[in-house]
C-alpha cells in the first residue's frame, strides 16, 4: 500500500517536472495578419468628427499583442507605392483608434480572432486646411528569451488613410506625359500616361484613350484606372495593374496596319477641368510582309520552272 502511494507520488512529481520543462521550451509560431479596408479616403469640412471601421484579424498560431502606430507618408515613385516620412503627423492628437469606444494603443488578439476597431478623427475649426496622408500600422510585439543566437521576427500590416481637410479646390495638374512608340510592327500598344498633381489636394482623374485608324474609324477605346494622385506628386495611370513596376495603359490589339491616332481625354474631377491630347503612331507588320514577299518569290520561281519544263516538253 505504502509502495503504491510512493509510486503514485513519484509519478505525479515526474509529471509536474516534465510539464514545467515543456513549458520552458521556446516554440516557433507563425504570424499572420489581415486588415480591411486597405484604404480609406476621407473628405471633411471642419469642424467635424468622422468615424470609420477598421477590421483586423490575427491569422497566426498564438495570442499576440499588436501595437498601433500612426505614420505619415508621401508618394514614392509613380506607381502608388509610399514611403514613410520622419516628421510627426501634425494632426496626430486628433486621431484615435477606439476599441468598443475606448481609445487604445495596442490590441490583443487570439488566434483567428477578428476585431472591429473605430478610426475616429476629430477635425477642429482651427486646423490647417491641407491633405494628410498616413498609415495605421499594427505590429506584433512577440518576444522570446535570449537563450540562443536568434533573430525575432515581427510582423506588421498597414491600412492607409487619405484625409482631405477643407472645401475641394479646383484641381491643378499637368499632363506630364502621354506617349507611345512612334512605329510598331504589331500590338499590343502601350501608352504612357503620367499626371503631375501640382495642387494642394489629392485628385482621382477619370480618363480614356480613343484610338482611330487612318480612315477615322474608332477601333479601340481604353478606360484608364481611377487612381489617387497625392498632392504635389506624379503618378503613372495604367489601364490595369498587370505590370506593376511600369504602369502603362495597354491597347490589346494584335494586328495593326497603317497610321493611327490616339486621343486621351482626362477629367481631373467630376466638374473638370478636362485634358485632351492626341498623338499618332504608325504600324506596319514587317514580318507578315516579308513572308508574303518570300511566298511570292517562291511562286514566281516555281511558275518560271513549270513554264520552262512546259516549253521543253513542247520542243
Amino acid at each position, binding site marked *: 500500500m505504502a509502495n503504491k502511494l510512493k509510486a503514485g507520488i513519484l509519478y505525479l512529481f515526474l509529471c509536474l517536472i516534465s510539464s514545467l520543462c515543456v513549458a520552458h521550451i521556446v516554440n516557433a*509560431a507563425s504570424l499572420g495578419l489581415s486588415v480591411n479596408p486597405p*484604404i480609406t479616403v476621407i473628405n471633411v469640412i471642419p469642424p467635424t468628427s468622422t468615424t470609420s471601421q477598421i477590421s483586423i484579424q490575427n491569422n497566426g498560431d498564438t495570442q499576440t499583442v499588436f501595437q498601433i502606430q500612426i505614420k505619415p507618408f508621401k508618394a514614392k515613385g509613380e506607381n502608388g*507605392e509610399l514611403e514613410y516620412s520622419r516628421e510627426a503627423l501634425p494632426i496626430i492628437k486628433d486621431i484615435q483608434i477606439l476599441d468598443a469606444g475606448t481609445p487604445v494603443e495596442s490590441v490583443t488578439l487570439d488566434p483567428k480572432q477578428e476585431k472591429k476597431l473605430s478610426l475616429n478623427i476629430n477635425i477642429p475649426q482651427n486646423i490647417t486646411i491641407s491633405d494628410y496622408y498616413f498609415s495605421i500600422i499594427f505590429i506584433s510585439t512577440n518576444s522570446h528569451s535570449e537563450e540562443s543566437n*536568434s533573430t525575432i521576427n*515581427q510582423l506588421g500590416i498597414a491600412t492607409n488613410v487619405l484625409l482631405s481637410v477643407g472645401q475641394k479646390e479646383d484641381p491643378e495638374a499637368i499632363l506630364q506625359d502621354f506617349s507611345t512608340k512612334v512605329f510598331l510592327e504589331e500590338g499590343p500598344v502601350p501608352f504612357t500616361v503620367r499626371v503631375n498633381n501640382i495642387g494642394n489636394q489629392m485628385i482621382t482623374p477619370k480618363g480614356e484613350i480613343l484610338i482611330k485608324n487612318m480612315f477615322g474609324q474608332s477601333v479601340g477605346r481604353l478606360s484608364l484606372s481611377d487612381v489617387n494622385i497625392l498632392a504635389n506628386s506624379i503618378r503613372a495611370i495604367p489601364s490595369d495593374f498587370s505590370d506593376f513596376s511600369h504602369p502603362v495603359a495597354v491597347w490589346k490589339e494584335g494586328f495593326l496596319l497603317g497610321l493611327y491616332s490616339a486621343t486621351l481625354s482626362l477629367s481631373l474631377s467630376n466638374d473638370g477641368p478636362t485634358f485632351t491630347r492626341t498623338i499618332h503612331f504608325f504600324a506596319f507588320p514587317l514580318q507578315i510582309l516579308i513572308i508574303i514577299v518570300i511566298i511570292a518569290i517562291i511562286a514566281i520561281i516555281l*511558275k518560271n520552272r513549270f513554264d520552262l519544263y512546259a516549253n521543253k516538253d513542247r520542243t
Partner: protein
Amino acid sequence: MKLPFLFTLAILYLLLRVMTVNAQQPMSNGDYIIRTNSLNTVSESVSDLGYKANPTPTNLGPIISEGVNYKIMTGFENLKTTLSFSVSISSDIIDFGILSPTNPIIRTVDLSTNTQGTYGYSVIVFEDQPLTASSSGIKKTFIPDTTCDKGTCGVETSAVWTNALTYGFGYRCDDLISISCDNSFTQPNFYRHFPDIINNDDPQSIISAEGADNQQARISYKVNTSGNQSKGNYGNTVTYIGIPNF
C-alpha cells in the same frame, strides 16, 4: 496567272485580320458604347434541363458614406471590398544555433501575402539593431551587418557573398509563388543587410508587386563569424510590414 491569285489571298488575309473582333475592348458604334469594366448587376438564376447559370454578384468598391461635413470612401475602385489585405510569416523566430567561426549558417522564413483587394503593395523590412550579445555587466558586442565579399552591399544594394572569410549578418529574398522580390536579388548568392533603425537607416522595400492571391517569397538569413568573435548569445529583432499602395 497564279501571282495575282496569291496577292489576292494575301490581301484577303490582311483584311480578315483587321476585321477581327477584339472582345477585350468595349463595344461601340456611333450610337452606343458598352463598357463592361464596372457592370455590377445581378439577375436571377437561369436554368434549363441542361444547364443552370447562377449570378455572380460582386461588392465592388469603394463603399461610400456621407454626412453633412464629410464623405468617407473605403476600398479601391472596382475591387471587391470584402477582400482583406493579408500578410504572414512562417516563423516568429530564427534560431541560428551554435555559431562556428568561418562556418556560415543560413536559415529561412517564408513570407506570404494575399492582396487581391489592392492595386499593389510592398513589404518593408528593418532591424532594431545588429545581432548583439546582451549579457548583463559585459560590454555589448555585436556581429556587424555584412557588406558582402567586396564590401559593396548595403541596405539597398546587394552583392555576392560566398567567401567563408567574409563575416557578418545579411539576408536575401527569393520568389516562391508569383511574388516580386526586389530586383537586387535576381542573382543567386547576392545578399544585403537589414536597415538598422538604431543607425537611422530608413526601412527598405524587399517586395513590390501587384495585388494578387496567394503569393509567397522565401527570406534567407545568413550569419558568419570570425574566430575573434566574442562568445555570447547574439540576437536582434527584424520587422516586416505589409503596406498596400494608395
